[in-house]
């Protein structure tokens, strides 16, 4: 379990050029009559995302009247609101109020979710490309990829598609020149400096290195998704046999 002292650390970042810039004040961006985006920095970084997560959790807990949903992303979160109940000025004040109280409330540490993955072969047809590009063996790619816990920066584009940060540089790989028309549900891929999971079948251009047998989107379950933005994902390598066992067991 990896714990990060959330909330406490957010104000301690040294404001040097070496660090990704956390804005001194958030930038508010209006999205029509029902959306307000709150932006905290101009980079993809764990520090900025930590701030996003802390504020999103704290604002959610504050149960501000009129807020319909809070959607966290890399460096910002979107507040969807009911215009009959609140407005942009009130929401800005709520954000400022939560910000002031941020140090006094305890933000829960992110959960770590373990996702079993069968790497390579038919499950990860691009793993050889990734290995060759970096002069690694396939086993080394697996060891490196499964040796890290990755933070979910954002879930978007298709239900449950998770964008994960923290991919070691040695695995950074370009997207496919032409996206595949069908990527199977559960596929784990790499695109540039990100890794991610296709929770449902869709088209896609990421380099596929493995697949999980878990059903990541169960629309009829009380909790349709295993993970939320802000959680940590750890991939656990499994064999093809184990993949089949889990797949038939969870079907």
């Amino acid at each position: 379990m990896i714990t990060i002292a959330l909330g406490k650390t957010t104000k301690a970042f040294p404001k040097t050029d070496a660090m990704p810039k956390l804005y001194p004040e958030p930038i508010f961006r209006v999205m029509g009559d029902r959306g307000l985006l709150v932006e905290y920095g101009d980079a993809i970084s764990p520090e900025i995302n930590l701030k996003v997560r802390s504020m999103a959790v704290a604002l959610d807990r504050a149960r501000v009247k009129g807020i319909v949903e809070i959607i966290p992303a890399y460096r910002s979160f979107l507040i969807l609101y009911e215009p009959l109940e609140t407005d942009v000025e009130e929401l800005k004040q709520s954000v400022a109020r939560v910000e002031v109280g941020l140090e006094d409330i305890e933000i829960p540490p992110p959960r770590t979710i373990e996702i079993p993955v069968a790497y390579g072969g038919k499950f990860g047809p691009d793993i050889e490309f990734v290995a060759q590009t970096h002069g690694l063996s396939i086993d080394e790619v697996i060891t490196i990829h499964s040796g890290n816990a990755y933070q979910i920066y954002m879930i978007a584009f298709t239900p449950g598609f998770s964008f994960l940060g923290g991919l070691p540089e040695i695995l950074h790989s370009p997207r496919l020149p032409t996206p595949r028309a069908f990527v199977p549900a559960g596929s784990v891929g790499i695109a540039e400096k990100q890794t991610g999971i296709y929770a449902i079948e869709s088209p896609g251009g990421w380099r596929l290195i493995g697949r999980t047998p878990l059903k990541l989107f169960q629309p009829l379950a009380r909790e349709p998704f295993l993970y939320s933005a802000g959680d940590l994902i750890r991939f656990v390598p499994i064999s093809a046999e184990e993949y089949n066992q889990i797949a038939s067991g969870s079907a």
Partner: protein
Amino acid sequence: METFFVREPGAFTTVQDAGRYGFQRFGVPVSGALDKFAFVAANLLVGNPETSAALEITFTGPRLEALADGLAAVTGADMPVALNGKPQPLWESFRFRKGDLIGFKPAAKGVRAYLAVSGGILAPGVMGSRSTCVLAGIGGFDGRPLRKADVISTDSATSIFRLTSIPEQFRPQHSNSITLKSVAGPQIETFRDSMELFFQSQYTVTSKADRMGYRLEGPVIPFASDAAKSIISEPSVPGIVQVPADGLPIIILVEQTAGGYAKIATVISPDLDLVAQARPGDLIRFSPCDILEARRIHLDYRHKLLDLKNAIVERDRMEI
């Protein structure tokens, strides 16, 4: 209760309700009826709660055989509807009996018609909504459009059928040239030199126009010289106008949750009803609207929906 047998499904007919809220943070789009006013009107005409599931019909309608008696209403696009070949008025409810055939002619004006049926269309509730989301494969008929030989069921309705009508002044007139009130931003700085151009230009709806979004053709919108053409992906809302690298705007609609392109403006939500009825070749202008005005218009729109409820005229009442 089994209510219709689908003889022909129409071009793209889906079950939609008011939308699936609360799951955008998991990448689930809101879906739901695109023309909210027409959708609510159809439900009210048949005595349903305003958020009951209805059929959203695109350009060409289905052919339905009634398996039971009931009350139906068609609103939205000017899409002529007939019962056993006899034309029925739009924006009014009409009665059908077991064995009747309901058919449509292609939309003469507008794009999307709503067919509401007394009781509301029955479909499993998925994450709080019956709306079809094709991307996620959920809602309606297993997340897909209607198919030949589907059987449409409805929740049981009251046995008192009131034939009703929406007064003329509430019925929108579809035009092939529309103006969409839009709030500047979210990426104001990226388009600081082109905002004026955007609000003065006329755009044409291309054939790439569906529930995901409407691609437009017209004057290319330049980016500020110091601005990146793509941004770090962020959540979006229906109505947001994104500008990809080619400079041609796209109005994002209800089947997307995020985007990595800069956005110049956001169409206010009441005006999305106009987008829902815009056809390829139609002309679109954007007019600037500040957030206070947007809020006022939104409040007016809600009041109009409330007024609609009280304004529905009863033409006849019958019992079965």
